[in-house]
Structures are given as C-alpha cells and as structure tokens.
C-alpha cells in the first residue's frame, strides 16, 4: 500500500526544501509572535486562546507546495515509475508524507500555543481539550493532503494549489451569496459539500460528545478522504508520464 523509502524521502525532502520548510515555519513563528505580542501589549490581560483546528489550514497548503505535480514538472516521474512500485503506492506514499509533515507543524504549533497559555494563565486548557484539538488538526492535515494530492495527480507544478484556491474562493465568496436567493438554496448545500472536500476535518468533540455518537460526521470525513484518494489513484493510473508526451 505504501512505499517506506518513498515516504521517508518525501518527509525528509519537505524539511530540506526552502519552499516547503519556510511557509509552515513562518506560520508557526508569526502566530506565536503575535500571541506573545498581544500578551505584552495588554499586560497579560488578554490571554491567548487555542486556535481551532480549521484555522491552521495554511499549514497543509504550505507543505503541499511539494507534491506529485512538482515531481512531474521536475522530471522525476519517469525514473520513479520504472521502479517496482505501483502507481497507487506512489500516490498513497505522497499523501502519507504530506499529511505527516503538515501534522507535525500543526502539532508543533499547538504545543507552543499550549505552552504559552499555561505560562501566561494560572489555569491552562484541559488536557482533553488539547487532545481533541490535536486530533482535529491531524484529521484536517490528512484530509487536506488527500485533496491536494488528488488535484496534483493531473495538474503540473503548483496547479493543485491554484485549483484549491479557486474552489475555496467559490465556496467562501460566491456560493453564500447565491444561497441567499430562495430559488438557489442548493448553493449552500453545494458549499457545505465543497468545504467538506477542500477542508475535511473530524471534529472529535462534536462527533463523540453527541448522544448518540454522530456517525454521519465520522463517515462523511472518511468517505471524503477515501474518495479523493481513490480519484487521485484513478487519474494517476491513466496518466502518461514520459517527457515525450508533454
């Protein structure tokens, strides 16, 4: 299912490349610096809050700068795919690597934020809350990685990020406006589904704290991620990769 050498190399590469190292690092540092600045500015009156998982969506986007499309543009695919490696294995390894690295940055951000809150206030957040937040972040990173990898199986270079951006703009700016019209209510449903694909996130608290357990949330998340991965594998299986075909 997954190639460990490829997975390891893609994880390592994310930390060695300027383009995939700087954006998430900058996000973490700027976010932390902002919280510290607010603390100092308000003389410790305004304590920082733990950000919601979905607010860290910039991290997977930054890590996603290096994906299948980049491998194709850089001419790495012809040699990689003549190795004893299924194409589905290649796609899944890319997804796992991107999800792992994005999760690492998201969790590092959470740990630093938590540390700051604990240092600045007498009562920090409950460990269970932090755990929910962490799981939410990891689920968002793995979910967004599936979507970005799916887009990059066909689009060259950073095309997958451009497509994600366009769809996100439609979901956030166009569809809500359309949905205001009584006759176009379906636009809001489309928006909800589109956001579920673009930013799949598993809200653990709302999923498991509900009585009974909200299986719909759980299955929606896993079906969205699975759908994007299967779609990506299907597209990549049909892709011709020789540079002569460009």
């Amino acid at each position: 299912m997954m190639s460990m050498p490829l997975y390891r190399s893609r994880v390592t590469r994310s930390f060695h490349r300027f383009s995939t190292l700087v954006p998430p690092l900058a996000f973490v540092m700027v976010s932390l610096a902002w919280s510290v600045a607010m603390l100092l500015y308000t003389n410790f009156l305004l304590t920082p809050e733990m950000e919601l998982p979905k607010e860290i969506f910039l991290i997977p986007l930054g890590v996603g700068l290096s994906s299948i499309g980049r491998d194709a543009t850089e001419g790495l695919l012809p040699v990689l795919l003549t190795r004893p490696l299924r194409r589905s294995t290649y796609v899944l390894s890319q997804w796992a690597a991107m999800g792992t690295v994005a999760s690492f940055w998201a969790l590092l951000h959470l740990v630093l934020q938590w540390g700051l809150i604990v240092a600045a206030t007498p009562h920090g957040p409950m460990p269970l809350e932090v755990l929910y937040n962490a799981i939410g972040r990891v689920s968002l990173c793995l979910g967004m990685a599936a979507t970005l990898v799916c887009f990059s199986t066909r689009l060259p270079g950073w095309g997958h990020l451009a497509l994600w951006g366009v769809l996100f703009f439609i979901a956030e700016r166009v569809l809500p406006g359309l949905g205001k019209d009584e006759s176009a209510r379906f636009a809001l449903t489309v928006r909800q589904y589109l956001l579920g694909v673009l930013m799949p996130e598993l809200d653990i608290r709302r999923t498991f704290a509900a009585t009974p357990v909200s299986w719909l949330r759980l299955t929606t998340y896993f079906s969205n991620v699975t759908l994007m991965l299967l779609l990506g594998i299907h597209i990549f299986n049909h892709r011709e990769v020789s540079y002569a075909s460009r």
Partner: protein
Amino acid sequence: MSIPRPLRADTPAAPPEQPSPTPDSPGVRVEGVNKSYRRGQRVLSDVHLHIRAGETFGIIGPNGAGKTTLFGCMLGLLWPDSGTVSVAGLPPDHLEVRRLTGYLPERLTFDAGLTARQCLAFHHALAERPVRERPQEVEALLTQVGLDKAVWDRDTRKFSRGMMQRLGLAQALVGQPRFLFLDEPTLGIDPEGVLHLRALLRDIKSRGVTVIINSHDLAQLEKVCDRVAFFRAGRVEAIEDLGSPSATLTRHVLVVRWAGTQSLSPEQLATVSRETGATLMEPAEDALRFSVEDDWGASRLLGALLQAGLPVASAAREEGRLERFFQQQGDRTP
C-alpha cells in the same frame, strides 16, 4: 490485437516464477504499435520490433521520429493506442518487469539536495534490494560507472552534465536489471567517459543483459550494438545487423595514405581504379578514398597503385558503416 488504455496502470504482482531472459526467452516484442498524442499528431505507426534477449539494440533516427515515445511504450510509461508491447513475455508495466528493468532517461533529474550516494541509496531501496547490502552495492555501482570518489558525497545540484549522466547510469544499473534502456547515454560525457561507458556496456552485455540504446551517436552505436533500427516518421524503416557481413559491409571505402608527395595525376588514378574495379571517391586532404568491392578488390587496387608509383604508406577500411546506413535511409544527418 488492440489494447486500449488499461483500466489499471499496474498489473497485479508477480507470478511465483521469475522470468529469466536467457537467449531463448522472449526479450522485447513490439507488435503493431500505433501511438498518437492528443493534438492528433501520430508519433508511432504500426511499429514491429523483436529485440532478442541478451542483444544490444540501437535505435537511430532524426529528431521527432518517435524514438523516445517508443521507449515510453516499452517502459510502460505511455499507452499505445493499439498494438502490444511485451518485455520478457509480460506487459511492460508489470511489477515483475520493473524489477528486471533499468532506465536512463535523456533528461535526467534527481531529488534536489541529495548527494550521489543518497540518490543511489534511495533508488536501491525503491528497487527492493536488501538493506544490508546497500552501502557496498551503492559504492560498487558508483565505482563501476567511473564517478570520482571525491564527489560521491557532493550535492548532485553541483554536478556537471557528464557526472549526472554517470550517476544516472549507476541508477539504471541498480537492482541488476536484465533489460537496460538507455536514452542518449553518451550525452555530455567526456571522451574518457565514453570509452569507460563502452567498456561497461561490453561487460553488461557479457552478463546476458538486453541493452536498448536510443542515441544520435552513430559511431558509438556501431561499436556496441548488434543490431540497429532506423526510425523515421514513427516507422521502422530498416534494421541493420551489424554482427553479420552483408553487401554493404563487403563493399567498403578504403582510405590510402602515401609517403612523401603524391605523384600520380587524376587521370592515372582514374585508370588504376577502373582497371581494378574500384571507384575513386572525393579525395581527402592527405588521403585518397576508393570504394572497393571487397577485400580482394582492395588488395588488387593497392598492388596497382604501388605498381603505378604511388608510395603507399598505409591503407585502412573507413569506419562509419552506420553513418552510411543512416545516410542511405534518411539522406540526412542525425
């Protein structure tokens, strides 16, 4: 038989027995392959080829003739519109075939930031070679391709084209392939490297590896290949068997050099040529070139030249059989 685009690019994993391409085994078969790109441009037209196991096969032809596309089809990276390709009797994208295949692409790139040793170790791992043997095998391969030891731990972004080509060749040799596909292997390599590559190819061939080379370097192809296919406009125009004597081989060009000054007039030379059945060709600056029927014809010509008073110092068969073959087929330079 027609094969539309496969539903899955990867055929299921290997049968238990591994195909061993001995001279009796199937080699590479290309049967009636047609291939067009989306713009409607037809790149391959009814290509038939049978590359025998263990032979070194060259592919020549002008730019845009479809050579690289054929390589793509043989490697399972491109899907033919119709026709079949098989390697060792299996589809080219079969995982077992990939275990037997090494590929050196023309435009070679590696993951940026890796050293030569790391690159090769990565491909060694992808080729499912044993971890325990990795350091030794990687070093053996780097030595085999003649890459200077001083650059083994240098970032490949600082490599010259020739160094990259050597590393690419080492990468293609990872996993002890039985089928080696080389796309322009001498590109950017210095003369010493070319000699090294030629010796390496001889060694690889002696181990029964099937080598398929796509190159514009006719002189090198002539020295290493058993057969060469001439491609034009997506078709195999002709196949030249370099291993067996043929009419083109027996009829050859003899280059004659002399000591001191050339004392014979053009008329005398024409007469000598006519009498011995040779044809005087366009003379070089310091040599005379004759087209002779065979070795006996060459012998007669040399005797007549000496008798006529030409102080012959040396006579040698002119190399470049493949070049002449190419010119006959394509009437153009590669």
